[in-house]
């Protein structure tokens, strides 16, 4: 498993929530935002479309838009503002991404 970025300090008695990250099984806790769920299971959320590497969010209050991830269906989610839910299938790369040529 990739190194988790965030460290849980408290509130660890909550019910587990199973979801997947790029097809890999992952576990979070009920009440985690999707951003936290992803960053206790790994070190990043997405890759910058502009070629400067990985990103792991920035403002956590819905202002910077640096925590966008995707569902397999192609929906874009702002990970800091929505709770993780059982069975979510999250992609850290945009399906059919078309920006690579600009990098």
């Amino acid at each position, binding site marked *: 498993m990739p190194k988790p970025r*965030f460290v849980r300090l*408290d*509130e660890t008695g909550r019910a587990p929530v199973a979801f997947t990250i790029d097809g890999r099984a992952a576990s979070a806790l009920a009440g985690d935002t999707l951003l936290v769920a992803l960053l206790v299971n790994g070190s990043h959320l997405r890759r*910058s479309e502009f070629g400067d590497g990985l990103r792991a969010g*920035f*403002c*956590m209050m819905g202002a910077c838009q640096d925590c966008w991830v995707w569902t397999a269906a192609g929906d874009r989610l702002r990970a800091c503002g929505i709770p993780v839910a059982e069975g979510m299938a999250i992609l850290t790369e945009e399906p059919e991404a078309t920006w690579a040529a600009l990098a």
Partner: protein
Amino acid sequence: MGGPRVIIVGAGPAGVRAAATLVAAGITPTLVEEGRRDGGQIYRRQPEGFVRPYDRLYGSEAAKAAALHRTFEGLVGRIAYRPETLAWNLAEGALHVVSAGVAEALPFDALIVCSGATDRLMPVDGWNLPGTYSLGAAQIALKSQACAIGRRVVFLGTGPLLYLVASQYHKAGAQVAAVLDTAPAWLRLRALPQLLARPWVLARGLMLVAGLKRAGIPVETGVRPVAIVGTPDADVGGVTVEDARGRRRSYACDAVALGYHLRPETQLADLARCAFSFDPDSRQWLPEIDPDGRSSVRGVYLAGDGARVLGADGAEAAGELAALAALRDLGQAVAEPRMARLRQICARMDRFRRGLAAAFPWPAGQAASLTDDTIVCRCEAVTVGTLRGVARDMGAIELNRGKAFSRVGMGRCQGRYCGHAAAEIIAAASGLPIEAVGRLRGQAPVKPLPIATVRAST
């Protein structure tokens, strides 16, 4: 029904107090909140299922947080509450909102904007590396999610939040590698007369700093940030600064909390066409308000940190005051002594705000010394050199023109995290005073909307 249509944007301390004031006067306001729950950022509620008590979450402010939450709970059923709703535009006497992909226009007789603030950022080489967060983000991770942003965290920037969040991390059991403040300590002495406007807040601040030092955490003042080091495909690895005596110092860490106090969210005031003026104390453009919170546009009121960063206590007073002003303008009788008292509170808070701006100044001077390859726009990875280039070679010495030529401020955060720094960079590159560079105009939608958004059927 048939009463005046009053809309409040934001369910933080200002918005909740404004709503309670209107309800007490027999009005049913609409309260629009982007988040899932009330409380705003400072009194942000933890999600359902979390069990930490108020005193652990809010420390010395626990009673105030509980009172605000109780006030909100008492309003349920007496206000038209719209959570998870983004106010994205303001045009022709209507607030445009979207919720769950459905857009609506809400006409109003009075609008009270309590839009809050976000972190104010100055770039530093490497601030785009994964593991760098705003100070506000570091606090939200802890307060709302019981997480630290890393194993070993450096706090870099200036302002009261720097020491507050570092202390909260230490108390919660996280490892604080260092607290690095760009403001020299002697400025605090100079600002003392203004800071004494709120002696208890000042005392609490001093205790926080003393507590960090007592815990053996390095606390440096007067530093100049050099770089956040690491690799783009892995992690932050450390922070390098020059200390007050010009010596290079490095602190190993795997996360950085970065911020230079706050900036008001003024996009809705801008879209309402409110007049702005330059505030030399904080070196930023602020919407003009009268002592009661009236903007220059009839029927539009501004309160809380979205107008002036007075903090939560000031926001509660300003929210109530703006609601009373709206009631008076709508023709209701309002108790003048209460308004006078609230004006007094806000004036005292504003004196303290100016004191904080003097003690922990926005580090405008850094803009000139940033390296050309430092990223200024995190959204689209545009460098300082590109922005300097359009200012020097293409004559883009006005901020919106600089944005058009360089794309700095045009990305998905819409200039929230680069706008103030971009103005300083253009000013430094062109030799103009900062106020001559102007400010980024707010544009609708104030945050990205899904292309699948549909209009509500009527």
